[in-house]
């Protein structure tokens, strides 16, 4: 099946609005930050939980990440990227830092992942919000080659480094690097990301 390229509504996430709120939070506006929280807490928590799996640890790291959003909001520049990107970059980095601080655990996971494919985007049992968004992303992920899809999801959702991805999938390092880049670009085009 060839997934139709989904038409992007005019700013469906109200992202310009979120940019403005994050800028205001950067000036010390706590009410604006609360509004930012309401918009990003679910994806921040969901992403971190995907990477860390453990619920209690995920909650702790989500709290740290959201606080970092508050502390660094003053440096956010909407001309250089969206607020959603800014926030999710912080959340993802926090999650992988936590995962990699336990190298042994990460290696254990890498070995396990060699035998067990990562859960597809719609396979998470917990209540997943914004299912339209999830469905859109899942369809675009389905449009990638198997190797691209696995490389991207192992790196992003499992927090693997690309050498860990390579060893989990049994392919060459350079191949994984290329597949991640090509896979992301294809996803970007499929999702109609405007940057």
């Amino acid at each position, binding site marked *: 099946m060839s997934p139709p390229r989904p038409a992007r509504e005019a700013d469906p996430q109200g992202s310009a609005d979120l940019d403005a709120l994050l800028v205001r939070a950067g000036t010390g506006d706590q009410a604006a930050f609360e509004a930012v929280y309401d918009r990003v807490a679910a994806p921040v928590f969901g992403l971190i939980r995907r990477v860390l799996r453990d619920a209690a640890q995920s909650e702790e790291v989500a709290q740290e990440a959201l606080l970092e959003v508050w502390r660094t909001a003053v440096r956010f520049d909407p001309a250089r990227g969206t607020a959603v990107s800014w926030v999710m970059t912080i959340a993802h980095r926090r999650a992988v830092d936590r995962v990699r601080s336990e190298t042994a655990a990460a290696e254990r996971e890498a070995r396990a992942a060699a035998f067990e494919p990562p859960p597809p985007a719609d396979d998470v049992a917990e209540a997943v919000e914004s299912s339209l968004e*999830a469905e859109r992303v899942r369809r675009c992920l389905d449009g990638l080659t198997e190797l691209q899809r696995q490389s991207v999801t192992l790196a992003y959702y499992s927090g693997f480094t690309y050498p860990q991805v390579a060893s989990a999938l049994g392919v060459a390092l350079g191949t994984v690097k290329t597949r991640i880049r090509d896979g992301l670009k294809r996803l*970007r085009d499929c999702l109609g990301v405007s940057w």
Partner: protein
Amino acid sequence: VRIPGLRRDPHAPIGAYALDALPSAERARFERHLASCPTCPDELRGLAATAAELALAAAETPPPNLKGRVLADVAALSGARDLDAEIAALLSAPDALVASGATSAGGTATVVASLRAEAMVFTSVGLPVLPPSSVYELWFIGAGGARPAGLVPPVSGGAVPAPVLASGLSGGDAVGVTVEPAGGSPAPTTTPIVVLTLRA
């Protein structure tokens, strides 16, 4: 690991970089490339925005108490930040007045005040630790009597109490300290242990 005969493409790691998937040494190397690469920033923005879409697709309702904890942290951080900034501004005010004196209970009390800012910062060292039932209360003492100017935060033995910032200072006011029941009093109920006069 380099494959002989294959030239390393300096852009190749950009996808892995956007997904935080580069080991730290390679990440540092790529960031050096990024600093001088004319096309990378645009591509990276697109890839980071794409990664953010993957995050949105993973959204999951957070535990209900997370919000309260995050907002409490934010309030605490920003309170400390605001107070520090206000205290620093007052300490460097062009019209700052300083008064200091020993108290009858022991220790030394110091006030830095700005009439233009109508505020003061109170600090102390060596004040005896009070039982939990009592507190040191500060007063602006003017022609109309004593007006409450805040409570000195209780500390355990040896520690120096945090500075107290109080606004509502008027010209001609002195600053006094009394021992009051915990929670403070609307008017002094004991004799001041020190009264500091502010003079230009």
